[in-house]
């Protein structure tokens, strides 16, 4: 019987098989940011331990960093202390860090792939649930808690039970303007936010193969919103073309050997999955979330559901609560929802392709007067520089959008970028939870083009009709 992609990478990383069915799994890449690491480093020091493999670790501050001018440093004292703790921990242990003054600084899930720190077939962990992003490279990539961050620092391993494996096949052609983000939201809408719990998910099919690496990263990024810790896409030419020549990728002397190994990273034709779902790409329209969970999502052409459509009393209660929080009427049209702010950024959608898609919508137009603020936050200093070289920043600035420094920003609003109570945002981030973008803030998850178009029109529009 053939193996799945997940099985292949998993088997290559088994250090020891335990009698109870768990394994000791070797970790190739450990990405670190300021929020979930200080307690792990402190634990290491208290136990007089050292990181096992320094060269496997790379760090960058992202959650807490300001996106306005950096010269002033971080004015929030508690946030500054945390970023300084990352700096001093990296210095103390000799860990590679892209600090605030480094052009390579940015959102850890943008920086890893961009620098070639994320490679096909790796096991990648980070103290952040959106580590699933890196599965786009045919890697097993998963978010871990701080205790496990310490565990990986100390031992280079994790104790893991093999999850079940699901394959989601999306066959056919995606319509123009439909992105990896729309595919992700569509799948979550179908499966629910607990639909993938206990699974690793492989995304396959012709529609997935047609996505760029940026699109695949957006898709795998939101696997966690479907409940699965890890999402994957098989390695192909698109993957290899992206990786080749990146600063930390294998150089010419090792490329042939690496490529030969990576070419094996796909599910065998006779591989058997614990669960398989087939979807038709033609059914996927631009998606807009309406509620306070990513599963509360519909197409732009649809209406906010009626409470009578809920499947049971628990969902009925959840929807009623969400509608009240979001200030929406059941049955209202998505296109009629007016927005106050736009946020284009986050580990889901802050890569160069995302900014290009947004700029194409914005070019030659102006932000609606009713929209108070539209933020463009590049995923890294490298993305920012690339966008500026293409003139994208000027397109945004001319349209009345704000061009910012890289970081997580208003995705989770740990820094000064946030919604005020009652404000409604078209956001390219990944979570629409209550308070996620600021106390009382109302988030609608969309693709970059959809967010940009909402910023111009002042309400949601179908970008397939954008002229």
């Amino acid at each position, binding site marked *: 019987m053939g193996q799945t992609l997940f099985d292949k990478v998993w088997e*290559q990383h088994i*250090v*020891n098989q*335990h009698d*109870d069915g*768990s394994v*000791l799994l*070797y970790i*190739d890449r450990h990405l670190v940011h300021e*929020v*979930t690491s*200080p307690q792990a480093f402190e634990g290491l020091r208290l*136990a007089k331990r050292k990181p096992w493999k320094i*060269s496997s670790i790379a760090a960058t501050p992202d*959650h807490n960093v300001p996106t306005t001018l950096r010269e002033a440093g971080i004015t*929030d004292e*508690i946030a500054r*202390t*945390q970023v300084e703790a990352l700096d001093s921990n990296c210095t103390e242990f000799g860990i590679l860090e892209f600090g605030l003054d480094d052009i390579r600084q940015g959102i850890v899930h943008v920086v890893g792939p961009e620098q070639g720190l994320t*490679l096909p077939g*790796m096991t990648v962990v980070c*103290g*952040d*649930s959106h580590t699933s992003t890196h599965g786009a490279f045919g890697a097993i990539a998963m*978010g*871990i*808690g*701080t*205790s*496990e961050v*310490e*565990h990986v620092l*100390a*031992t*280079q*391993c994790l*104790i893991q*039970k093999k999850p079940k494996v699901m394959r989601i096949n999306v066959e056919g052609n995606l319509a123009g303007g439909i992105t990896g983000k729309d595919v992700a939201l569509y799948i979550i809408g179908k499966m629910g*936010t*607990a639909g993938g*719990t*206990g699974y690793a998910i492989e995304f396959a099919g012709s529609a997935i193969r047609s996505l760029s690496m940026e699109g695949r990263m957006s898709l795998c990024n939101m696997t*966690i919103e479907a*409940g699965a*810790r890890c999402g994957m896409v098989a390695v192909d030419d698109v993957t290899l073309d992206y990786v080749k020549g990146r600063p930390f990728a*294998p150089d010419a002397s*090792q490329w042939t050997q*690496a490529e030969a*190994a990576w070419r094996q990273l796909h599910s065998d034709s006779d591989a058997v999955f614990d669960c398989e779902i087939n979807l038709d790409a033609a059914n996927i329209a631009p998606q807009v979330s309406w509620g306070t*969970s990513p599963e509360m999502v519909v197409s732009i052409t649809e209406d906010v559901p009626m409470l009578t459509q809920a499947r049971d009393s628990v*969902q009925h*209660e*959840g929807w009623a609560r969400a509608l009240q929080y979001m200030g929406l009427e059941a049955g209202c049209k998505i296109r009629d929802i007016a927005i106050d702010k736009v946020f284009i950024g986050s580990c889901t959608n802050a890569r160069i392709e995302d900014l290009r898609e947004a700029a194409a919508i914005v070019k030659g137009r102006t932000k609606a007067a009713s929209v108070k603020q539209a933020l463009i936050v590049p995923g890294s200093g490298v993305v920012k520089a690339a966008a500026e070289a293409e003139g994208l920043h000027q397109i945004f600035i001319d349209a009345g959008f704000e061009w910012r420094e890289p970081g997580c920003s208003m995705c*989770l609003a*740990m820094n000064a970028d946030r919604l005020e109570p009652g404000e409604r945002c078209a956001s390219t981030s990944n*979570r629409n*939870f*209550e*308070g996620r973008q600021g*106390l009382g803030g109302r988030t609608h998850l969309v693709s970059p083009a959809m967010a940009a178009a909402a910023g111009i029109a002042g309400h949601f529009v179908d970008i397939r009709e954008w002229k």
Partner: protein
Amino acid sequence: MDALTIHQGLVVPLDRANVDTDAIIPKQFLKSIQRAGYGPYLFDEWRYEDRGEPGMDCTHRPKRQDFVLNQPRYQGATVLLARENFGCGSSREHAPWALLDFGIRCVIALSFADIFYNNCFKNGILPVALDDAAMDQLFTACFSQQGFQLTVNLETQQVSTDSGLQFSFEVDAFRKHCLLHGLDDIGLTLQEVNHIHAYEARRKNEAPWLFQA
């Protein structure tokens, strides 16, 4: 980490599905570099009328009286009931830290998000998943009886009431062992150090690009 064998305590019912870790501990409190001190900010946006900030003294903050944790009958609760997909979202271990700091030692829900579930065991909190019928019975009993208590026995893997309700739950043998004895699993993994070295030696030949300085 404190061991947990048998725990008996007052139960608080949080009758919601998809309770996310942003709700359990909002982002502004993640700026701390400590493991302790998050209890006063547990469910901050649901518990208080105002916007909480790190370091704030919570004793005089205006409380939302309709939120279950603020109701007098549930003060001192150590067991939390919830519905499907508890702890979804962010991997922040600050969520179990906040629950523990508040005094919660056991969360009983229809299901849990994977990362949160795992994080609980690392911090001496027992997450128990029970089926729909059992959860409905527990919620009903908790709403109807003042001072409703549960006994959670990790050894026998059972949740029970004085009135005779009893439910069995599943738990992974290794996690159970660690929680019963309060074990640090880094120490356990380091007993396998020879396996790790042997793996690295082999892997360096297969994939040398993973071992560059």
